[in-house]
């Protein structure tokens, strides 16, 4: 059923799944992917509020914010993966448990 509450529930489920991935997994790549899950959950909330209040002057703002989120997500993925590459080059691991030192 397409109601505001269902859309918001969907977004909450996706967000919680992402949080689970971040805390429960040790592979840093999967942690980064889980962050993308969380961002997408939030995007769904933005879009559904825009859809259900189209008359308000702020409705297109929801769409704009999703675009900004995507840009930030892209930047975050690029930097995060660069860190992963640099880390792997030195330590040959993608395990978050091994990432304890700030320098070596």
């Amino acid at each position, binding site marked *: 059923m397409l109601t505001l509450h269902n859309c918001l529930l969907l977004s909450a489920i996706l967000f919680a799944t992402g949080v689970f991935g971040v805390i429960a997994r040790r592979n840093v790549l999967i942690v980064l992917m889980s962050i993308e899950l969380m961002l997408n959950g939030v995007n769904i909330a933005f879009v559904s509020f825009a859809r259900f209040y*189209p008359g308000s002057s702020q409705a297109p703002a929801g769409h704009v914010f999703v675009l900004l989120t995507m840009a930030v997500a892209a930047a975050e993925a690029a930097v995060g993966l660069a860190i992963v590459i640099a880390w792997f080059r030195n330590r040959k691991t993608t395990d978050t448990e091994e990432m304890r030192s700030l320098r070596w």
Partner: protein
Amino acid sequence: MRDAFFVAFSFLAIFGGFLTVSRRDPMYSALSLILFFGAISGVMMILAAPFLALMQLMVYAGAILVLFIFVIMLLALRGEEIGGERPWPLQLLAGIGCAVLFGLIAAAMLRAPFQALPKVGPEFGSPEQVGRTMFAEFVLPFEVVSVLILAATMGAVVLAKKNLGKPEGPAVDAPKDHGGTH
């Protein structure tokens, strides 16, 4: 019809998200993430945001996820290299924590007043409308994001370069990201 599609896409998204966090092999996580992004794009299409749905496919599925897969291939994470997992009691605990978190978010969100689905014209969510709002009301956030992307680009290049000062192979160019496609 629309409801059926919404339900189908929602379940696909939840299923894809679940697979993403539960696969051991990062490559399979990435594969599930394609499913997830596709489903999210479908949900956005149903929520009358066609422009965003396609941007979703372009930016997330077309660029970000390709970066992930590229890095997985670059590191050649296969078999033993993937590394260990947390013991199951900790995972269970994390699961319970996330269920509680979900309950809290849902409780807060469900306080939003019930809203019947309003009708919207074909203009709603079109590139024109989003563009007008973005460049009229939200110029400042837009510019800030462009600066952020510039900083991230330089940061990524600096981080991924083997040793600064020496010329480097072309692979480091990959993390640079489409500042221009927005």
